[in-house]
């Protein structure tokens, strides 16, 4: 019984939407069967002191009708229903109305049309013009509703400019409320819910990709429309690794330090066109010749057309597929660089690069990596990748320790790639457990890599991070609750002598 009732409601609601379709019937209608006035309001209807009711005695047709507040005001601004902007047609406006009680000194209905006024922001409504005024005589109907049919005034019929029509409910004395339903307004719906319910406007779309030029970041390129960012359009993230995994390191988190920012370009179908990554190599406080890369978790390698911009030694420990990704990987894996020391030169003194303040600074090296998923709008054999398949969590960063390809070190709880030597898992200080999804953490959950969003100055060589950042341990022990900005330069956060 309940199922059929719900089905009936759904059918009525769908019928309501279909019959609202101005393209089909050139009518704007309100039958309340959505059961949620918010849906109509989202579609640009306006309600003043009017709600929906499903009480048996209130229903005129279907399962829902409108119900006014008590009509105790003669002002047409007190209680009303207002259409969206519409191109008014011709013929008659129709609706049904009755009351929930017979008391009250007077009760009436007025119809107004509201012109568009360009100088009256934010709603741009002009002065309402009354074109129909009806005053009930007692006794007010509470059983069968009165059917109204009101001719659209000639001055707005079939007009090429937009109007709203307002039904105002007025009265004095008593507590009776007006119930209405099945409101039909000849004309074409012309509001834009995406633009504050202002009248629809003709959009300019130079590349005809369906995205208005004002919203299109590539208005002259039909194959590109939008940019999304990780971590953001205005900031970089920093990855800081220890490289002795599975043994615990010295926790200075400077064995490999890289900044990153990824711009994901999508088209009007929300498919990824390309990823444009900036990878900034900053420091390597290590003797190991470490590499750095990332896997796009869940993105098959055959969905990538090409990968360019990485820095690879010759010869290299990495084997590449024809699309520039690492070969023999089921998921797209980009090796940004395979050896930090062929990317940035050692300054000649000190134990690493840019981790010893007494050694010369080596200029950072920025790689501009491009991973193409579509070429001229055409995907490779593997098909397209939707932006929803590529959230920030899909970027699975790792280093390759000392030219040992199987020795991948990932951020905590990130899965290793298929070329990782999983026999190392759970050895040394590592407490990884594939069956429980614990990866790259010690028994007490210490990591080999951290990911800092918003700018990070790493420790100098051999200075443990908690000797450089005084609230680091509290941040970690609290699960990130305490001192979430431990890495900033706020007073009391840092020991500057321990920071490069």
């Amino acid at each position: 019984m309940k199922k059929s009732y719900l089905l009936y409601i759904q059918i009525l609601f769908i019928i309501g939407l279909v019959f609202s379709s101005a393209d089909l019937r050139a009518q704007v209608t309100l039958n309340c069967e959505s059961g949620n006035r918010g849906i109509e309001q989202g579609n640009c209807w306006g309600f003043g002191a009017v709600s929906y009711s499903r009480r048996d005695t209130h229903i005129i047709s279907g399962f829902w009708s409108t119900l006014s507040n008590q009509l105790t005001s003669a002002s047409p601004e007190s209680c009303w229903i207002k259409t969206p902007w519409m191109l008014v047609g011709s013929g008659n406006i129709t609706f049904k109305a009755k009351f929930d009680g017979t008391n009250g000194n007077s009760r009436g209905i007025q119809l107004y049309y509201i012109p568009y006024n360009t100088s009256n922001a934010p709603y741009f409504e002009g002065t309402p013009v009354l074109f129909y005024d009806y005053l009930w005589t007692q006794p007010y109907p509470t059983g069968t509703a009165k059917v109204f049919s009101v001719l659209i005034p000639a001055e707005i019929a079939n007009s090429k400019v937009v109007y709203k029509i307002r039904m105002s409910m007025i009265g004095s004395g008593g507590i009776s409320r007006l119930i209405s339903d099945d409101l039909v307004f000849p004309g074409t719906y012309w509001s834009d819910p995406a633009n504050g319910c202002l009248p629809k406007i003709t959009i300019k779309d130079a590349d005809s990709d369906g995205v208005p030029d004002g919203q299109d970041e590539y208005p002259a390129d039909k194959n590109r429309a939008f940019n999304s960012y990780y971590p953001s359009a205005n900031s970089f993230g920093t990855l800081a690794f220890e490289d002795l995994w599975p043994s615990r390191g010295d926790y200075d988190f400077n064995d490999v330090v890289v900044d990153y920012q990824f711009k994901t370009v999508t088209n009007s179908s929300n498919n990824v066109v390309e990823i444009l990554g900036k990878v900034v190599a900053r420091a390597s406080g290590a003797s190991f010749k470490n590499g750095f890369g990332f896997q796009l978790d869940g993105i098959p390698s055959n969905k990538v057309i090409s990968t360019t911009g990485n820095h690879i030694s010759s010869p290299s420990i990495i084997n590449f597929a024809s699309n520039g990704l690492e070969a023999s990987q089921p998921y797209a894996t980009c090796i940004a660089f395979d050896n930090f020391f062929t990317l940035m030169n050692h300054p000649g003194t000190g134990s690493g690069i840019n981790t010893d303040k007494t050694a010369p600074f080596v200029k950072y090296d920025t790689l501009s990596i491009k991973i193409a998923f579509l070429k001229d709008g055409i995907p490779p054999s593997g098909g397209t990748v939707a932006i929803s398949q590529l959230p920030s969590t899909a970027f699975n960063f790792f280093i390759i320790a000392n030219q040992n390809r199987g020795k991948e070190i990932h951020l905590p709880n990130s899965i290793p790639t298929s070329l990782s030597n999983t026999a190392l898992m759970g050895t040394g200080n590592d407490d990884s457990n594939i069956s429980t999804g614990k990866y790259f953490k010690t028994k007490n959950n210490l990591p080999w890599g951290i990911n800092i969003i918003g700018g990070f100055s790493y420790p100098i060589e051999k200075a443990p991070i908690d000797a450089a950042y005084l609230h680091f341990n509290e941040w970690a022990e609290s699960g990130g609750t305490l001192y979430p900005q431990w890495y900033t330069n706020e007073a009391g956060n840092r020991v500057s002598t321990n920071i490069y």
Partner: protein
Amino acid sequence: MEKKILIIMALATVVLVSCSKDKIGSIDPVNNEPTKINDIIVPTAFTWSTGKMITINVTGLPTIFPVTSTLVIGSTDGTELYKDFHDMSQDLTIKVTVPAIETVLKLTYGSVTYDVPITGSKADFSFIPVIQDTNN
């Protein structure tokens, strides 16, 4: 007498060795402060990131006509994170990473911008306005 001297020398050696051991073992050579990062115990679910991943659930509005426009997710300072071309009638789930201190996201659809509060790792938004009806 010789025995006494031997005992004093032995005790002195023990004391000196002990002091020396203490110094080497407990003081960091760089900052001369004890550290304890090796000893901290961290919650299993901790991500070791200053960012947090937020799942944004967008509830669509049954529209009278197809309404499509650009949907932008940004942080409170106006920085853009995510953009797509969205049919207003469709539900959508978006995942973004924001600094852990963020409590609100900005959702812009077409020309209208909404503040969407972050609750835990979620942010829920509906194109259907929330209305409290008391008459029914």
